[in-house]
């Protein structure tokens, strides 16, 4: 356990123990390269479809907000429209794609995105 290779500061005994443990788990996980690669390619395709659809949907929501009378531009209204946008986006996704979203839910991401856009001052610098 303590036979550190002093030449390059690497503990090869510890490394061998860790290597065996990770190799054991990685092998148990099962799918070979082609399976992992194939599923990732499918996911890339789904993400691309979602992005193509989500941006126009979000843009439409922002435009809708711009023509809403000021009295309707309160937080609840924005949240409701953002939720509608998110639902539309979700309909073209499958559960795997949801799990791939960085924050766990694509709907959350779209809602935040729309909300951020909505909160921008049209006359402001951003």
């Amino acid at each position: 356990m303590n036979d550190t290779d002093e030449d390059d500061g690497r503990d090869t005994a510890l490394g061998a123990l860790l290597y065996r443990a990770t190799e054991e788990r990685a092998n148990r996980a099962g799918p070979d390269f082609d399976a992992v690669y194939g599923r990732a390619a499918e996911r890339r395709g789904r993400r691309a479809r979602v992005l193509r659809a989500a941006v126009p949907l979000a843009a439409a929501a922002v435009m809708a907000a711009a023509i809403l009378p000021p009295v309707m531009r309160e937080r609840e209204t924005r949240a409701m429209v953002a939720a509608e946008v998110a639902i539309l986006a979700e309909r073209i996704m499958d559960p795997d794609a949801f799990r791939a979203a960085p924050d766990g839910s694509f709907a959350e991401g779209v809602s935040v995105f729309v909300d951020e856009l909505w909160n921008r001052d049209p006359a402001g610098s951003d």
Partner: protein
Amino acid sequence: MGTSVTALDDAQLVERFARHGDNAAFEAFVRHYLPALRRFIAARLPPDVDAAEVEQDVLVRLHAGLGRFRFGADPTTYLYRICWNAAADALRARKRERGRARRMAALKADGDPRNGDDPAIQLERSSEGARVLAALRSLGEPDASLVYLRDSEGVGVAELARTFGLPEGTVKSRLSRARGRLRAALEPDTTGGRHDP
């Protein structure tokens, strides 16, 4: 683009993918590194997190980001960084899911659906390798990843410093302390056999 991808080295594969979007070059590059990436992900994640999901996520992120890779840099730095981030995201997602599951279980009063009753997960937890990995993970991050990548995968100190954004001296001192803690955590398993019936 006439050269077969099998004749290209890593840097050439990355450049070909980045400049021409050649998926064959991407696949050849990934095929070379996937076993190491899978081992690193296995080291980072507890048994109840689906490693296959994270592997796919890494490949998706890699495909989206490799085109912006700075030529001349070591691609493994970028690869391990993506793996580390994807694993961290998966752990955060698991935490959120567990919170939701607990709330649902409290509402239904019929137990947590994610309580680890899955026989495959139980088997995985009971293996010798699982105990080693649990000891590794108990070091916390980035120490666990530093020890794993240095000692198991042979990643150099300079490269680790770049990957984790730490000074080389800090990497060395963290490695030294983390190895000591890991040896201590593994000691009962390697000396006693006290757990045997």
